[in-house]
């Protein structure tokens, strides 16, 4: 391993200690949110409300995993660009079939 790499690795070692604290914090947050989402489900809310709440909590949890465990908060532009494109098509795939063929769901006949 060249000295450049060794230097990179030890710089990172300093950052890593900070990162590890973040990982533990995120872990605790994820546990708490898991408990919350299960607890709320016992309230048996109406379907639209239940879906909204569950989805919101899942999005927060997912963002924590993506942002911190997968390092997306500090990723390069290229990766963001690919993901933005993917999410756009993901949304189209989720929304358009159900708008097109579910008998008045969202869009009137």
């Amino acid at each position, binding site marked *: *391993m*060249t000295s*450049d*790499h060794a230097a*990179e690795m030890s710089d990172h070692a300093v950052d890593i200690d900070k990162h590890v604290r973040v990982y533990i914090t995120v872990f605790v947050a994820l546990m708490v949110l898991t408990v919350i989402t299960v607890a709320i489900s016992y309230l048996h809310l109406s379907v639209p409300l239940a879906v909204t709440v569950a989805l919101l909590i899942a999005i927060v949890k997912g963002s924590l995993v993506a942002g911190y465990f997968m390092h997306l908060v500090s990723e390069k532009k*290229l990766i963001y660009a690919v993901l933005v*494109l*993917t999410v756009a*098509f993901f949304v*189209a*795939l989720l929304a*358009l*079939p159900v*708008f*097109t*063929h579910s008998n008045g769901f969202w*869009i*009137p*006949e």
Partner: protein
Amino acid sequence: MSSPTGVAPPKPHGAHEAHHEELGFWRKYVFSTDHKVIGIQYAVTGLLFLLFGFSLMMLMRWNLAYPGAALPIIGQLFGEARMPGGTMLPEFYNELGAMHGTIMVFLGVVPLAVGGFGNFVLPLQIGAPDMAFPKINMVSYWCLFLGGITMLGSFLVPGGAAQSGWTSYTPLSVIAGSGQTWWLIGMIFLITSSLLGALNFITTTIQLRAKGLTFMRFPFFVWAQFVTAFLLLLAFPPLEAAGVMQLMDRVAGTNFFMPSGLVVSGQALTNVGGGNTLLWQHLFWFLAHPEVYVLILPGMGIVAEIIANNTRKPLWGYRSMVYSIIFLGFMSFIVWAHHMFMTGMGTAMAAFFQTTTMIISIPSVVILTALVISLWGGSIRFNTPMLFALAFLPMFGIGGLTGLPLGLNISDIPLHDTYYVIAHFHYVVAPGTIFALMAGIYYWFPKATGRRMNETLGKVHFWGSLVCMNVVFMPMFITGLAGVSRRLFDAGSAYDFAQPTMHWNVVSSWGAWLLAVFQLPFIFNFFSSIRNGEKVGENPWQATTIEWSAPSPPPHGNFVGAPQAYRGPYEYSVPGAGKDFVPQYEAS
């Protein structure tokens, strides 16, 4: 060891040989990780499947021209289950039709256009020593191979191969014979192959391009393959998911796609219902629409290279072409339900898909127009690649323009599922893409083998194919407009309204059989030129792009020393230059 931030210069070839032993036959030619070997494997596989898929159609065309007649000699080969007494059963016709489509699209064109040309040319054109992930590249070829074996093998299972169209619409495909299960398994292999290839192409293009080769200095072929790779990466997975669900319906008795109240041959099906059969169509077309752009984009890339080279002029409107191809790629994901106008969608959604479809025609027109204008004022060399590339323009024009009535809801109503559709898409793929691929073979054959193909045979191949393609497909616009449905094993002979157009089927059939004859000079030329073709050096076409700086054929590692790009890709006829082209890779 290379520095962490600079370009890693490839070591001179000699140093490598000292490090590893000479590879054995199997690792060098069969399980190779060299993109050139893999590219040739893909190309040869693709060409063989194109021939096979064409043969399936030639058989179908017998019953379309002479419905109910016994096919002499050849008809005896298929046994009582398929051609009793040499006359074709409708089930066999359906088998041939479904597999013709599947094989041509997924085992013929895509492996040749993307796997073949993409793998062989792309790294060379960007000055790279190989793909970013050579082992994954090898795996992707063998996934294709397994998929191909599965599809071919499916002809041998009881009940025969898939018979529900290349589109495998549910619920018919769910209740079909076991060949359909093999189709689904085959598709999973093919999709995996494409996904692995796509991520390789994208990573390679971004990371391994030569110093000085910025995105706006890419040859248009590179842009075409780059956008195509994104289409494959993001559009194929939904079909993979759908394939798994259809397999579950067939094998595990689920009802993802099986609607309630289904009656088959007078019997109501039990334990069936609750599913959404249109879900299959959504997931299928979510892939299959971008797939048609996968079929055409590499062809446009090839044609662009050949036109620039043989007009001795830069391409007109390069920037517009690049922005158009990016926009086209993006739009291709949100037009798919124009294949589903007849499924009972409301007017709002029909309007949405109609609008996006009309918008997507714009970038295609921009690209085609730019290519045509590129000819203006050129010193045109009419060699075989250029002939095919030139013919691509009007043929793709016809194919593209005839798509417009299909993209508008109101005109799609009488045209949907008729021969008009078959004519439209064959014009874009057959005298469109396949001509572009032929052009590419004649053009890059010298780079791959160090020899030229024979020009005379090439011209016979070209003119014969051009005439025959039109003889086959032009009449289908007529029969389609008359209302004759596609997928009828007897071309509508049972219908009164179809009678006035029946003779056109005979014309198309003879055109197809003659088209086959005109491929013989090509097949002969291809193999004999490997041995006997005129030997050439690095740059027989006096071209400007980086692949022409490598030896013909290039060695493992491609280049001696890292190439660099000093200018744009099409510096032909530069005023004041000593010759009529200034290569991209030549320092001033």
